[in-house]
């Protein structure tokens, strides 16, 4: 019961008044950002990261954690009320959430989405308490070759799972790895791709890439969509709560979707979007009245919301225990950790138990605070949705630049911000997904270093990468994840 003791210790940290305040502040800001159209948790964490620069590591992580799950709660508010999901994970909430609003049942939809999110989040955090230590202990056995293969698997899975064209997913990933090779090579001191520009010698800060792609890219995209007209938003509400009958309908869907979401979230590449869509389809198939789905079935809101929040917690496990983020948002969270001088991975659990368990404990507290914020106060918070995009986007731009300056105190990074903003926009019009690139930029240099270390240990013998059973399993998983969509297609054809 070592985990349990550590968790208690974590609670003594998380329950300090200042830390409760930070998780609340983070949660409110996250909820607001998550609600705004087009701005999901990844953008929220990226734009708000500079707020934490002067905090200690525990407070900083707790705040960012609050922003992260706050954005997950908030994302569905906009889906339900104006049919505009804040991010991919909130898309499934539009299927039945918006029809419920049209039928005058917005109160029930808002309440059940917060309740389901709460149960999904708390359930997943409980599993996390028990799973993370064994995973971290297992990961200590990994040598550089195993780590390299793990990176290969995580990136390949992410590129392969992204929606749309898989080849484009891999292009995005390769581009990210290329960006990560810019700068002075840590092992030999050779300058690579710096083109004699002094500022490029220390490499490109992944936070700049993240802010550029998520914030600037989003603003650039908005120019195209802004003329589409604004939807009116309901701001007057009755009591935001659900009836006993509605609760009975949602109870089992929530309990089924939470573990599903957690499991999918913990897989590399498959994030909240996939978890929520799977949970939705699952419930639709199991339902006795599938025809109600899409017309305002309350379990159609409950199931994806529970899954999506459970997935957001599940995704933290590979990031914290292995140093491998499984989604855009956890990649940004990992960026926050690295900025605080903490290297996520198995050793983090041994060296920094206070930080890790403080964070995990604060997830419980954060979920309680967010449920409170999102049920009784939902009517107040959703007023933010009335802010027109024409005001919102210039403010996001302003935040992106000040955030970038706060990272490095150098205006040089503004140029990189603009360049990567343009790259992000070009990627969006060519339908190249951004997530694999972001993950690759963050793990790229670690990946190359583990390759080089293994290469040195084996004296330039590449067979080290297939020498251990762990490596072979990882190679098999990589191949499966690349071929999975093809296999799935074949199966579907056979079915027909």
């Amino acid at each position, binding site marked *: 019961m070592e985990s349990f003791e550590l968790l208690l210790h974590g609670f003594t940290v998380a329950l300090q008044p200042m830390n409760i305040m930070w998780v609340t502040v983070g949660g409110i800001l996250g909820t607001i950002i998550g609600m705004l159209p087009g701005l999901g948790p990844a953008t929220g964490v990226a734009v708000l990261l*500079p*707020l934490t*620069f*002067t905090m200690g590591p525990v407070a900083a992580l707790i705040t960012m954690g609050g922003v992260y799950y706050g954005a997950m709660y908030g994302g569905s508010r906009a889906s339900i009320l104006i049919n505009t999901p804040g991010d*991919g994970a909130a898309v499934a909430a539009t299927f039945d959430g918006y029809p419920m609003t049209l039928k005058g049942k917005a109160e029930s939809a808002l309440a059940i989405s917060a309740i389901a999110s709460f149960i999904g989040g708390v359930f997943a955090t409980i599993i996390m308490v028990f799973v993370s230590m064994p995973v971290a202990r297992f990961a200590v056995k990994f040598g550089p070759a195993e780590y390299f293969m793990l990176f290969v698997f995580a990136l390949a899975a992410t590129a392969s799972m992204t929606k*749309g*064209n898989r*080849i*484009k997913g*891999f*292009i995005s990933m*390769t*581009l990210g*790895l*290329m960006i990560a*090779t810019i700068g002075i*090579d840590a*092992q*030999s*001191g*050779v*300058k*690579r*791709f710096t083109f004699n520009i002094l500022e490029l010698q220390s490499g490109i800060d992944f936070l700049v890439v993240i802010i550029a792609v998520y914030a600037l890219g989003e*603003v*650039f995209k908005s*120019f*195209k969509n*802004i003329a589409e007209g604004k939807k009116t938003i309901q701001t007057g509400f009755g009591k935001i709560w659900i009836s006993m009958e509605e609760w009975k309908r949602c109870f089992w869907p929530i309990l089924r979707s939470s573990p599903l979401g957690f499991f999918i979230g913990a897989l590399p590449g498959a994030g909240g979007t996939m978890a929520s869509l799977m949970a939705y389809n699952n419930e639709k198939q199991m339902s006795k009245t599938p025809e109600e789905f899409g017309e305002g079935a309350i379990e159609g809101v409950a199931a994806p919301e529970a899954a999506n929040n459970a997935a957001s917690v599940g995704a933290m496990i590979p990031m914290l225990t292995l140093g491998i983020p499984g989604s855009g948002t956890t990649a940004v969270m990992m960026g926050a950790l690295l900025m605080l001088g903490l290297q996520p991975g198995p050793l983090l659990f041994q060296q920094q138990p206070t930080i890790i368990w403080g964070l995990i404990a604060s997830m419980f507290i954060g979920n309680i605070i967010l449920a409170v914020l999102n049920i009784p106060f939902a009517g107040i918070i959703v007023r933010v949705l009335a802010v027109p995009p*024409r*005001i919102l*986007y*210039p*403010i996001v*731009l*302003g935040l992106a*630049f*000040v955030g970038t*300056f*706060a990272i490095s*105190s150098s*205006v040089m990074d*503004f*140029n990189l*911000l*603009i360049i990567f*903003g*343009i790259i992000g*926009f070009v990627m*969006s*019009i*060519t*339908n*190249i997904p951004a997530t694999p690139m972001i993950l690759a930029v963050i793990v790229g240099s670690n990946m*190359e270093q583990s*390759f*080089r270390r293994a*290469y*040195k240990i084996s004296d*330039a013998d590449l067979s080290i990468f297939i020498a251990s059973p762990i490596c072979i399993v990882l190679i098999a998983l990589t191949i499966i994840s690349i071929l999975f969509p093809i296999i799935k297609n074949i199966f579907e054809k056979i079915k027909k």
Partner: protein
Amino acid sequence: MPGPEQARQIFIIRGEKLSVSLITGLITFITGTTYTLIAMNLPAAPLGRANEPKIFPVSLGILMIILSFLLIAQEMKKRASKDNTEYEKAVFKIDNHIKSIILTVLNAAIYSFLFVRAGYVISTFIFVGLELLLFSGIKKWKSSALIAIIFSLAIYILFYKLLGVYLPMTPYIWI
């Protein structure tokens, strides 16, 4: 989230239809080739194996070239099997929104020039103000100016005064 309709966006250049994927394939090929060539000519490591710093980048470059071929091949195959009428529906227009993006980039360049010279509050007022004008139109200049000044002051107080993040000051004035 790119929807299916977006996936069929087509650039029309001199009457010729070029699908986005084909252009992407070409850009990818050029990127991959340039990167590989630079990677191959990287200086040798002064210690240890001379080629070590090159191995990883060169492999990435080659992977990129392979991916570009795969993408082009996939697109050619699609074209051969589908009739082109479907492509006519969505036409990618280079119009106002590209203009707005170019203006935003120019505005950002001015911002980056003024940031240290004019100080945070003034340069941000100009940057956010211009951006608000770009989004809202010239008629709403009063509200834009007001929002811009509130934003730049609020961020200044939050970051500089409360959080202690360094921001450049305007010469000769207190902020």
